[in-house]
């Protein structure tokens, strides 16, 4: 596959993968977290925050991002902290609880209850469309979040309203809370369903920056896009990859030592 990122860009993003995992672990040791979900979407977040879009300026009509799978908020906080947009004190304070806090700069919307972020993103998109702004509205939903009826409602609406600037990323880590998604609700043919609904459906390895970049460069200008990012829960900690027990990590857990062995 052709690489589109320069070696320097690739190295910069890869360095962030390791650096931010360490920050996330530091956060978890103090505050606990849903670390498995944070680690699965981290490369996507790094890519959109450090490379593809400018999500941290004060322009009204900038690109916008909503983390609909809100329990991965510490991953988002760690980026804002790394970019020095959250102070160290705030990063470890009660303000940075496990779901995105709207009172923190550049958190575009308070999410947490699943199934809310996508409809809100469709609202942003509608507003931009009416104002003829080409900036993107990016939203990450979890594959477990596909259980929510409101997500499917908004899939239907987005294609009906032709929200071309909407980019929906499904963090497909194949787990939800306590079990594998295919054991809870087995959604076998989501790609073809979404294609039939009228979306541009793209797919990539959600931890491979070159693949992520190539996929984002293919985003449609003529219809709403869904990117299925194939990811791994707890990516970077090989010993516990894809284990259903490691959804949440308590700060007092003896398992925390397993997370010290990050390898990418």
């Amino acid at each position: 596959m052709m690489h589109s990122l320069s070696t320097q860009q690739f190295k910069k993003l890869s360095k962030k993968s390791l650096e931010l995992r360490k920050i996330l672990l530091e956060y978890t040791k103090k505050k606990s977290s849903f670390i498995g979900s944070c680690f699965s979407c981290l490369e996507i977040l790094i890519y959109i925050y450090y490379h593809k879009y400018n999500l941290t300026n004060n322009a009204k009509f900038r690109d916008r991002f909503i983390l609909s799978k809100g329990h991965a908020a510490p991953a988002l906080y760690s980026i804002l902290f790394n970019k020095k947009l959250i102070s160290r004190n705030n990063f470890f304070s009660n303000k940075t609880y496990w779901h995105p806090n709207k009172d923190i700069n550049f958190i575009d919307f308070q999410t947490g209850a699943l199934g809310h972020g996508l409809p809100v993103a469709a609202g942003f998109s509608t507003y931009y469309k009416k104002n003829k702004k080409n900036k993107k509205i990016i939203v990450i939903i979890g594959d477990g979040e596909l259980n929510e009826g409101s997500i499917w409602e908004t899939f239907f609406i987005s294609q009906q309203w032709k929200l071309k600037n909407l980019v929906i990323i499904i963090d497909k880590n194949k787990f939800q809370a306590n079990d594998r998604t295919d054991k809870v609700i087995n959604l076998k043919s989501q790609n073809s369903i979404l294609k039939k609904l009228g979306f541009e459906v793209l797919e990539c390895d959600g931890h491979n920056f070159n693949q992520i970049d190539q996929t984002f460069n293919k985003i449609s200008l003529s219809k709403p896009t869904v990117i299925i990012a194939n990811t791994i829960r707890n990516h970077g900690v090989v010993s516990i990859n894809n284990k259903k027990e490691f959804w949440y990590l308590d700060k007092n857990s003896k398992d925390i030592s397993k997370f010290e062995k990050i390898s990418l």
Partner: protein
Amino acid sequence: MIVNEYEKFLEKKLKDGNSFVLTAENLLAIRNLKKKDVLDVGISEQSLIGIASGIAKMGGKCYVHALSNFLLSRAYEFLKIDLDYNKCHCVLVGSVGGIQSTFNGPTHQSIDELSILENFNTFEILFPITIDEMVSKLKSFKFKKTLYIRYTPETNKQININKKKITNNFLIGKGDILIISYGPVCSEIFQLMQNNKHLQNKFKLFNFSYIKKKKITHEFKKFKKFKKILVIEDHLEFGSIHSRLKSIISKNNDKISIKSINFGENYFKTEEKITTIMKNMGISEKKLLNIKI
């Protein structure tokens, strides 16, 4: 062709480029707007609220329409998180609320709006008796809170209520018994009183259409001079105006007798016209004249 004042109001608003009319396939209040001006989500009330909150967050002004039961009950969590907690302020217009839903049966009836809306910190409530009253409020509405309106259809415009009187809330009568009501029930009572001098001598009618959390206590000061109050409404007793006033009276040890006629308690059974229901519940000239409080 635009036929009612609310549609005229929206048509004008849409020209400013920052207003959005949304609906969950409910056109009762907006049937004559151009189709291209209405964003229809189908019957997806949860997404309706989520999308409206996204637009509002960006600074857009949303007028959101649905059947009131689905707007409030089905989309409750979205109202709580997306509108109330995130402080994304919209105008919500719920149709066939309260007594207006007689023929739909229990699944479509909405008689718990006040008790639901009481849970939100950033919501105000308007149960207007006419479209004029609704539009008058909307003209001054600044989107600093969310406004829920129990939509009263055009037919109620037929009653001839002076606009000034609507603002003053005391609509008609000079008696020493205060009737408190709102919405179509209030307009029915107004019409009864308008045609009967004896009723006007016995009662004074207060239109309690604009309800803010703290306003009930504030408004109560106006009621204190009345020693007898009759509240007539179409809402479950829980959360109703009657239950709240009763609690204020009891808390203050005021010597005021208060009585309630409430359609909300048993009208799931009904399949009749509003006027018939009202008669059955004791809202007729004869029964009101003989009522003991």
